[in-house]
């Protein structure tokens, strides 16, 4: 299977199964299209005649056509074009394998100092009781992670909520505890903090810059966009309070990982203006802007008619990032960060994010859920940190949550980039974790096309 498209003046062909990316000239682009459409039913002579017809009057010679077909034949022989699918059996092995847990999302605070009305966590309390995680519960969660991590050395813990800084002392104490057992347990804890910025102080900055591998800072972009949803309980916008905090935070980050993480909705489908505001007016270089996850009936939910605008925005962003790179002032957009040579292996590409198997969310009271987006849905409680995963049937269901378990993904060119997509999105959109969220698929595919175009442009421009 292949996928071919034109973007920003480049002809791009992706060979799905090998992961190869080709940049053919116009003649080869058409030849590949004709071969793909004929599904092996046409001879080289027939393809050649069609190419002569398509390029009549453009000086294309029979010799050039033969060279092109030879190039295609060579790539096919190397397994880099029209390559066969050989990975499906590995997907079905996933249920048999004895998975280990390597990442926890610790919901240290089921409460928040903002009242963002698009919040999937119901303003931080996850439709349950407000509450804070105790140190004892958090400590047990870390022990549970170590006990269930097998031979994995790298373990990840995200302080999440709600607003985790409303329980900052426990965050600090848990990191100190983790550091105290790392050497003995032969583990490397990587902590992440996701914060709305209200509670960011000099002490928080100093601690996070010492202990957190990555920080995710929530800001939606322009002041009027951010303050439409990101308000406190009195209705006051947060922009003027959080931007100075974030600027100081990033300034002192010293090159360690961070992402400015925004959400775009039906009200700001021109979201590149928010990205450029964060880059040009605020000086942030590591950026992430995500489509809102909302009830389809919500006014903020993205609509089908928004898609052409959103697609155009992704193209504008990709072209602008290339311009910035040429000018020596690059920015990073999370979804365009592809590593073609050292990216994920086929196992990762098949099995996805690992929710419900390698990655679990822990509530303030110690209950386990497949991820932060399933919290407090009684159907999806998996167990707790004292007894472990007791709902093994649910875990097995998540083990099979991969690109080969979804019939809709079978013929999708992007399946080895998205691994079948987000189980929570599928559940909320289709009522089934093995379903798909079609609008999410469309947006994802557009992002990958843009990300690959950037890689092609960098290669062709010699960067």
């Amino acid at each position: 299977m292949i996928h071919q498209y034109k973007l920003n003046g480049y002809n791009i062909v992706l060979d799905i199964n090998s992961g190869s990316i080709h940049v053919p000239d116009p003649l080869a682009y058409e030849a590949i299209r004709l071969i793909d459409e004929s599904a092996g039913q046409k001879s080289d002579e027939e393809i050649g005649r069609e190419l002569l017809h398509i390029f009549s009057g453009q000086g294309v010679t029979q010799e050039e056509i033969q060279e092109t077909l030879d190039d295609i034949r060579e790539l096919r022989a190397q397994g880099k074009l029209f390559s066969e699918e050989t990975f499906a059996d590995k997907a079905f092995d996933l249920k048999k394998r004895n998975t280990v847990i390597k990442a926890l999302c610790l919901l240290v605070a089921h409460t928040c100092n903002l009242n963002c009305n698009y919040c999937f966590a119901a303003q931080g309390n996850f439709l349950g009781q407000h509450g804070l995680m105790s140190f004892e519960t958090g400590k047990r969660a870390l022990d549970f992670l170590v006990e269930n991590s097998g031979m994995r050395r790298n373990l990840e813990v995200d302080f999440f909520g709600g607003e985790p800084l409303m329980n900052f002392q426990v965050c600090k104490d848990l990191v100190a505890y983790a550091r105290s057992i790392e050497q003995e347990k032969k583990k490397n804890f990587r902590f992440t903090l996701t914060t709305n910025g209200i509670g960011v102080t000099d002490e928080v900055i100093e601690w996070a810059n010492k202990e957190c591998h990555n920080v995710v800072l929530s800001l939606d972009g322009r002041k009027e966009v951010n303050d439409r949803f990101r308000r406190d309980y009195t209705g006051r916008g947060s922009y003027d309070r959080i931007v100075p905090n974030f600027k100081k935070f990033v300034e002192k980050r010293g090159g360690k990982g961070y992402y400015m993480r925004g959400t775009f909705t039906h009200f700001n489908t021109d979201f590149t203006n928010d990205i450029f505001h964060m880059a040009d007016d605020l000086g942030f270089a590591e950026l992430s802007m995500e489509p809102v996850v909302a009830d389809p009936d919500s006014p903020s939910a993205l609509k089908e008619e928004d898609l052409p605008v959103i697609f155009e925005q992704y193209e504008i962003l990709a072209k602008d990032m290339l311009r910035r790179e040429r000018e020596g002032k690059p920015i990073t957009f999370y979804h365009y960060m592809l590593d073609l040579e050292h990216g994920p292996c086929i196992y990762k590409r098949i099995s996805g994010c690992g929710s419900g198997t390698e990655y679990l969310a822990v509530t303030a009271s110690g209950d386990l859920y497949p991820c932060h987006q399933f919290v407090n849905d009684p159907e999806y409680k998996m167990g707790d940190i004292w007894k472990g995963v007791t709902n093994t049937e649910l875990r097995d269901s998540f083990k099979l949550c991969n690109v080969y378990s979804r019939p809709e993904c079978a013929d999708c060119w992007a399946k080895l980039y998205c691994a079948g997509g987000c189980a929570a999105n599928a559940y909320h959109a289709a009522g089934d974790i093995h379903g798909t969220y079609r609008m999410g698929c469309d947006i994802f595919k557009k992002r990958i096309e843009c990300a690959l175009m950037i890689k092609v442009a960098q290669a062709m421009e010699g960067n």
Partner: protein
Amino acid sequence: MKHIVTLNTRDMKGCGECQTSCQSACKTSCVANQPCENKDAE
């Protein structure tokens, strides 16, 4: 190869040490951008 340029890509040739997608940035719609951390990878 006169008519087609091919980029260098990893030959699709399981250690699990790489970062979980959801821990990195978006938390909503995340595998392509997770770098491999297997020191013995091909």
